[in-house]
């Protein structure tokens, strides 16, 4: 009797698998195709939302999210709820690589064999904050501040944490002594934090003022070369400078 039940169960399971494998989106009629296309657009939209949340998280925390769970509060939706919205025959679960700023490629082989659906998923048509590269969905950061923070984190391969923490890198965060929730980004010469090269309010990064060391011999360091053109700088003595294409020029 048990054998019969087992046989029936195996038969049912194998027919279900066979049915899934037999689905060919290329033979779908207009309405079925439109439905798959809408699902595909929704999945792209999800990836765009994740990209947006990634940027918000980076700006608020000065660190890269470790996994999708970190983004749940920004998105206002859990990973499970988001996955439930997708047809698992067509789309894989979401896996976020926070360090590399990318999401896994999510088409299953079932839908990937339809060249036109694959091309649509991989094209930039419905994407603004993401694009496909090396079989991953890469996240685009839009704001200059986010790009700057991500560049600092990437350069030292460490998130920006409090400078009071001995394990912080040479780029770190200090709370403003006079304000509430106003942070400074501190740039030291090395992670020993013996010599301070510059510091600034994150929001002042694009135009200044940025406070810099008064020893001009450090102005060839990459941190100075990577400052935006035209940004206003003041050294520790209060002298005013301007970042130009080739140098840091003192303003008389």
């Amino acid at each position, binding site marked *: 009797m048990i054998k019969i039940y087992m046989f029936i169960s195996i038969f049912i399971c194998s027919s279900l698998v066979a049915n899934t494998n037999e689905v060919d989106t290329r*033979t779908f*009629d*207009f*309405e079925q*195709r*439109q439905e798959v*296309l*809408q699902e*595909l*657009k929704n999945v792209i939209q999800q990836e765009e939302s994740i990209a947006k949340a990634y940027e918000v998280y980076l700006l608020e925390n000065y660190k890269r999210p470790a996994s999708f769970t970190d983004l749940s509060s920004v998105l206002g939706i859990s990973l499970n709820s988001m996955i439930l919205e997708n047809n698992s025959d067509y789309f894989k679960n979401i896996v976020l690589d926070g360090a590399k700023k990318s999401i896994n490629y999510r088409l299953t082989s079932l839908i990937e064999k339809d060249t*036109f*659906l694959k*091309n*649509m998923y991989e094209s*930039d*048509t*419905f994407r603004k904050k993401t*694009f496909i*590269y*090396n079989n991953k969905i*890469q996240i*685009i950061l839009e704001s*200059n*501040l986010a*790009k*700057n923070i*991500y*560049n*600092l984190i*990437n350069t030292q391969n460490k998130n920006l944490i409090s400078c009071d923490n001995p394990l912080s890198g040479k780029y770190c965060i200090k709370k403003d002594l006079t304000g509430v929730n106003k942070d400074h980004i501190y740039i030291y010469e090395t992670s020993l934090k013996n010599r301070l090269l510059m510091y600034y309010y994150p929001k002042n*990064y*694009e*135009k200044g003022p940025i406070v810099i060391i008064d020893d001009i011999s450090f102005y060839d360091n*990459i941190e100075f*070369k*990577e*400052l*935006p*053109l035209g*940004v206003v700088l003041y050294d520790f003595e209060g002298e005013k400078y301007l970042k130009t*294409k080739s140098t840091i020029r003192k303003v008389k």
Partner: protein
Amino acid sequence: MIGNIWVSSAIVITLVFTASVSYKAYEDIQNAKNIQQSFELITEIKELISKQYNKDPSQITRDEIIAFLPKGKNWEKILLSNRRSGNIHNDSLLNENAEFIIDENEKIKLLALKAKLKEYGMQTSTTQNGTEINFQIGMTNKNSLHEDEIVQNRVEKTIELISLAMQNSNSKSSIVEMIENNTPYSVIYQDMKNLDSESLTQSQLKERKEAYFKNRIKQKLLSSKNSRDMKIYNELKDEL
């Protein structure tokens, strides 16, 4: 008596024949009108997609048009060359690349489509696959308004790709090659001549478009207000 029957039969046959010819003519006219209406709607949809997503209209696929259409309400009909009995697989007016396709034997449909193409002033080339004629429709002046935005988008995307390539420690030469491969030759509409009288070969034109594209990237990097782009600029300024 026999004469009367013969006359009556002849009249009936003539009437039936006239009716069927008239119906066929009516149906042909309806099909021609439908094709012209579909052409207008599809062109408008392509314009909207092109504007909304900064996409070259000639690159828009049939799937992107289907995804753009509202659900239900028989919108499938505008994609069919025969609205009465056709379906998307055997009677589509558009192939999957969203090129118009019409059988060469359907003269009235062909004329109807050609009349619309002429009215819209669209540059068209055709290819033939058996009896099926494919129409590759070029960008109109209206569409070319977006060309600059398309180039600008390509500049921004290429900067993202450069950033990834640098993170992966790719060589400078491979990055430069990647930039050249990303040059959107077809949407750079400037003639690239230094003098009006100058005449350029295809390879000279290609090289100048690449140089123009590299320069656009350089200017964009220079005007950026973030350390990532300045890092790229410092690394590649001599190659751009």
